């Protein structure tokens, strides 16, 4: 191994799957799944540690993984997972229910979360029983996707929060760390893997890059197989270079990207204004030009592409405030009491000019373009916007304390629309200005939404949940707590010169993310190309 | 042809015990270098006093202290009896400046190349609140022997001698009573030096200005100065009427200086052996002759008067000097019998 030659064209059958990471300039040998995500080495929770189930937003299905089945009690307060038989840790010890119970205890201790989880107990060798404080159906997938760590290893670790876990023991397909350098490392096969037939590739190599630009360059140059970074004009710069082998698939299953307005400030406290401004935005142009055509306009349900099954299509088709209409938008603003002045610019009720900032983190170049397009659109209806682009930290800290006008923000994304609506309309997520919050930056809450959300959480089945989501969609369309722009595409591109078996739009067994829950599905599906003349 | 002695009046400027130490080295250095040590000089009204000495003996330092360009470490400078170092601690007053002026050695350096001649004169007049019209400028420039059209010139358009005259005109603009002239001729071509010296004499005679003429050229000191003081390693070692001093030098250092002046007219060139003897007497001990153990004690020498005291006494400070042996040769042979083969 380690000939050091360019990966391009290696089809010996032992070639490594090469994944570039544009977000890691250098790697630290830290395979601790409890460490902050920007620190822990990539693929730790994808290739080394596994979860009990894998939810795939591309097709809305949950695949049993370390657990073979799960069950929610009638009162919705207990969830029981049954573990798969014969799963072993990479050190040869078997996976037990104790491991799972221990993992949740550790997770809660170290990082908190799971407020609804009272306890996780092992019941026999293969059953884990989770007791919840209240009926909470969204909890199922959350619990299921927690990666499990071996108790016998972590028990001995003195300070699990700070441990770097340099030689991880996991149940995943590729657990052996090899050739670790600051800018690259390799993961080799787990000899004890429970699906040895699915470990078809020899190993994975991760490369570090300082940004999209250099990572893309390596990828486009054929030095990597699978990327998830943003590639400008992917058709021209990547696919066209080798249309037979190169492909991309950008399912719209990412979180909804919204134009968030600080509803504690006038005039954004007025839903009419929010809707009118939304109507002024040319989403076609936003997605086509700003987002390189990688996504499509949002509708007034606010739901991202991952929730297509939940979407009320009729509602989406009927409402107007997410459809571009500058005239209507102007009229709406006139009616709301913001008439144009003699100079063609609108005035606020206070008499001041209708101007505000749109804040975007400077690193997100695509969103900056989006903001600029919105600014241009607004100019057409007599509203002046300034695009402010300090670094993300500054932007976010403004959002967090409520010290901003408007901004372009992602929203929460979960297996169900519950989390999305909870953080856009639930009052419980609203914090007063000045107090920090990590979601609901627009600081909007509606008591009606609270009720619906609680009912959703308590609903025993999907049909019951669907009814609540329908109601929530209507409420969203009415309140317009945020202005949805477009669902975030889950970028993913690959070349099948060296590996085949990629998920595609036709075979969406996973999304093309190499850092998400479904990644393990891809890793266990790929096959190396052998001995092909190139 | 000499100006009549005006020596009965109190001197215009008296220097008493003037000492100047320079700080050497950087920010935290404590090294000091003594450039002047307890210098006493009187500059009478309407007289030219020459200060001679070799390079580095502290001549310029004295001039700069008197011009208040350097702050002396200790001592007194009495102008009309007022100790200006005490009364004007933070630099010289306008009044002092209008009394004491200075002409520098290098006429190429002492005129700012970016200004016209007119500027120098006009500024000097204006700063001291004097009228600065065409007439005043014209009068000034002609006083130093230049023509009116030179007012429009830049310094680089003038010859060295002309520049030095402009510098003198600038000094005259404030109507000073004392002009410190620091080697005003040493940077000039030999052929024009004498013109400047003559100008200095004219200033004394016609305007009653006192001059401190600093030079290492004894012949020129003899030519212009009424009295001459000899500075050696920061100390005054001999002084007196110029003619008397050069005819009968009493200090070995003065003798050495005199012997070194090339003079085709000299009847008997100084004997090299004699010269070596002088040199040994004066220069061998590292910095100061007092430290030569055999002949000089470590105490300061006393001041002897040479010849008759006639108001401008010729004096010398030297351990080697014995009043009974006033001539140069006797001093030397007595003092340095063993250095003949140096």
């Amino acid at each position: 191994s380690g000939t050091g030659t360019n990966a391009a064209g290696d089809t010996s059958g032992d070639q490594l799957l090469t994944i570039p990471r544009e977000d890691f300039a250098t790697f630290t040998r830290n395979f601790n799944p409890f460490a902050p995500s920007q620190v822990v080495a990539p693929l730790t929770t994808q290739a080394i540690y596994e979860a009990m189930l894998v939810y795939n937003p591309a097709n809305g299905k949950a695949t049993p993984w370390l657990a073979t089945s799960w069950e929610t009690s009638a009162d919705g307060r207990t969830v029981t997972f049954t573990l798969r038989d014969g799963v072993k840790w990479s050190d040869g010890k078997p996976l037990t229910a104790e491991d799972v119970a221990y993992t949740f205890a550790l997770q809660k201790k170290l990082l908190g979360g799971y407020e609804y989880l009272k306890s996780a107990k092992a019941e026999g060798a293969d059953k884990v029983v989770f007791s919840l404080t209240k009926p909470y159906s969204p909890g199922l997938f959350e619990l299921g996707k927690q990666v499990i760590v071996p108790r016998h290893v972590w028990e001995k670790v003195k300070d699990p929060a700070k441990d770097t876990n340099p030689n991880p023991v996991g149940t995943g397909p590729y657990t052996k760390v090899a050739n670790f350098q600051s800018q690259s490392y390799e993961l080799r096969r787990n000899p004890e893997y429970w699906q040895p037939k699915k470990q078809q590739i020899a190993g994975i190599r991760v490369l570090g890059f300082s940004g999209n630009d250099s990572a893309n360059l390596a990828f486009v140059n054929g030095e990597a197989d699978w990327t998830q970074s943003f590639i400008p004009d992917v058709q021209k710069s990547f696919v066209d270079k080798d249309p037979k082998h190169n492909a991309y698939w950008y399912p719209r299953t990412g979180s909804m990207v919204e134009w968030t307005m600080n509803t504690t400030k006038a005039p954004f406290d007025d839903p009419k204004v929010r809707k009118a401004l939304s109507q002024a935005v040319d989403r076609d142009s936003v997605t086509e030009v700003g987002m390189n055509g990688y996504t499509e306009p949002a509708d007034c349900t606010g739901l991202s592409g991952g929730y297509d099954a939940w979407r009320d299509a009729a509602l989406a088709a009927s409402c107007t405030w997410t459809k571009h209409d500058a005239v209507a938008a102007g009229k709406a603003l006139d009616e709301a009491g913001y008439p144009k002045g003699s100079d063609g610019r609108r005035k606020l009720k206070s008499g001041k000019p209708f101007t505000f900032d749109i804040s975007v983190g400077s690193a997100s170049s695509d969103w900056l373009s989006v903001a600029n397009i919105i600014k241009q659109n607004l100019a057409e209806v007599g509203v002046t916007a300034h695009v402010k682009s300090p670094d993300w930290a500054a932007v976010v800290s403004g959002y967090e304390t409520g010290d901003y006008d408007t901004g372009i923000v992602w929203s929460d994304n979960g297996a169900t629309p519950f989390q999305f609506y909870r953080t856009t309309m639930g009052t419980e997520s609203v914090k007063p200005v000045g107090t920090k919050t990590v979601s609901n930056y627009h600081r909007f809450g509606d008591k009606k939404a609270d009720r619906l959300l609680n009912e959703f959480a308590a609903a025993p089945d999907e049909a019951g949940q669907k009814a609540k989501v329908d109601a929530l969609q209507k409420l969203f369309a009415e309140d317009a707590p945020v202005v949805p722009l477009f669902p975030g595409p889950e970028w993913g591109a690959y070349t099948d010169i060296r590996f085949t078996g990629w998920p595609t739009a036709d075979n969406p067994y996973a999304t093309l993310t190499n850092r998400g829950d479904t990644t393990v599905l891809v890793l266990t599906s790929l096959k190396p190309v052998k001995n092909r003349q190139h | 042809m000499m100006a009549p002695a005006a020596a009965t009046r109190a001197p215009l400027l008296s220097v008493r015990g003037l000492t100047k130490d320079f700080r050497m080295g950087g920010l935290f250095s404590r090294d000091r270098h003594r450039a002047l040590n307890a210098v006493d000089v009187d500059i009478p009204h309407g007289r030219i006093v020459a200060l001679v000495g070799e390079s580095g003996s502290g001549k310029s330092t004295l001039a700069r202290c008197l011009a208040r360009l350097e702050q002396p470490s200790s001592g007194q400078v009495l102008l009309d009896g007022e100790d200006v170092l005490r009364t004007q601690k933070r630099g010289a007053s306008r009044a002092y400046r209008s009394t004491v002026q200075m002409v520098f050695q290098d006429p190429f350096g002492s005129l700012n190349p970016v200004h016209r001649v007119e500027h120098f004169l006009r500024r000097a007049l204006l700063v001291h609140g004097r009228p600065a019209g065409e007439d005043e400028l014209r009068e000034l420039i002609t006083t130093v022997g230049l023509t009116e059209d030179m007012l429009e010139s830049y310094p680089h358009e003038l010859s060295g001698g002309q520049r030095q005259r402009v510098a003198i005109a600038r000094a005259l603009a404030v109507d000073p009573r004392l002009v410190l002239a620091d080697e005003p001729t040493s940077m000039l071509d030999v052929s024009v030096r004498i013109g400047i010296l003559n100008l200095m004499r004219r200033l004394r005679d016609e305007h009653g200005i006192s001059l401190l003429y600093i030079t290492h050229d004894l012949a020129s000191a003899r030519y212009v100065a009424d009295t001459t003081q000899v500075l050696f390693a920061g100390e005054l070692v001999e002084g007196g009427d110029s003619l008397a001093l050069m005819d009968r030098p009493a200090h070995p250092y003065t003798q050495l200086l005199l012997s070194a002046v090339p003079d085709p007219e000299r009847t008997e060139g100084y004997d090299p052996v004699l010269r070596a003897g002088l040199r040994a007497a004066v220069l061998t001990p590292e910095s100061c002759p007092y430290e030569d153990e055999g002949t000089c004690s470590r105490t300061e020498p006393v001041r002897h008067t040479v010849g008759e005291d006639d108001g401008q006494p010729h004096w010398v400070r030297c351990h080697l000097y014995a009043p009974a042996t006033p001539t140069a040769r006797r001093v030397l042979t007595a003092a340095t019998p063993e250095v003949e083969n140096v």
Partner: protein
Amino acid sequence: MSVLDSRTEPAAPRTAPPDADAPKAPRARAGLLRSLLANRKALFGAVVLVLFVLLALLAPLIAPGDPSKINSLGAGAPSASHPLGTTAKGQDVLALTLWGARSSLLVGFSVGIAATALAVLVGMASAYFGRLVDDVLSLVTNIFLLVPGVPLLVILAAFMPPGTTTVILVLVVTGWAGSARVLRAQAKSIRGKDFVAASVVTGERAVRIMFREILPNMASVVMTTLLGCVIFGIGAQAGLEFLGLGDASVVSWGTNLYWAGNDGALMTGAWWVFVPSGLCIALVAFALAMVNYAVDEITNPRLRARRPRTATKKG
């Protein structure tokens, strides 16, 4: 009784004014400017600079409207309607370059002027007052000079809120020291000249001596440091913006390059997005360097490149 020497009456009234350009080059500012215009390098530099300044000023006329306006998708090669092509977002590269000149030149010259002014003040105070003032100021200068600039720049930019003001401030903070050292040395040597002492003896006040007597003699050095600082300012701004530490919503050559990199201009073969701004930076810097070079040559004629002459006999 006095004997007037023979020069009291002017010997020969000068009929002709002396050579205006005598070998000892006139140091006056007018002289410097005149010599500059006569120098081919300086002329080239000046023409390029003036051209850029004009283009920057006329940007709203040549390329009206918002240059960063996003029009369409996909980069377009240079064509009749877009002489320099378009970026991946359909922005006209020519417009971006023209408008970019405004910010870049503005920042460059602001930094240049501010840093030089600071350096002049420090250098002058150091040289004029000497002693403790000098010791302390030159210590500070040397420390600033030694502390590596670009990392400090990056750190400062990271700590401060982004924006053009920050960029200028940060560049001045990191850029003044080198100039101050040069100016201090020059001012010190002029301070030591007798004409300064002569002004003191005349009774001039400190401020007047500094700015009327010393400063004019440093015209050429001030000019070289000014130009040097402008070069530094333009280059460093571009560097900072390229690293994403500037204000990405401002149109400048640095942000143009930042966006070019971000949009993968070179990866998609859209070299026309990448080349103009970089070339402009280089051209302006080169023009400034040429003027500088010329100033050096004029003040130090020995540096002039000699045309080899067919010497009959050589010494």
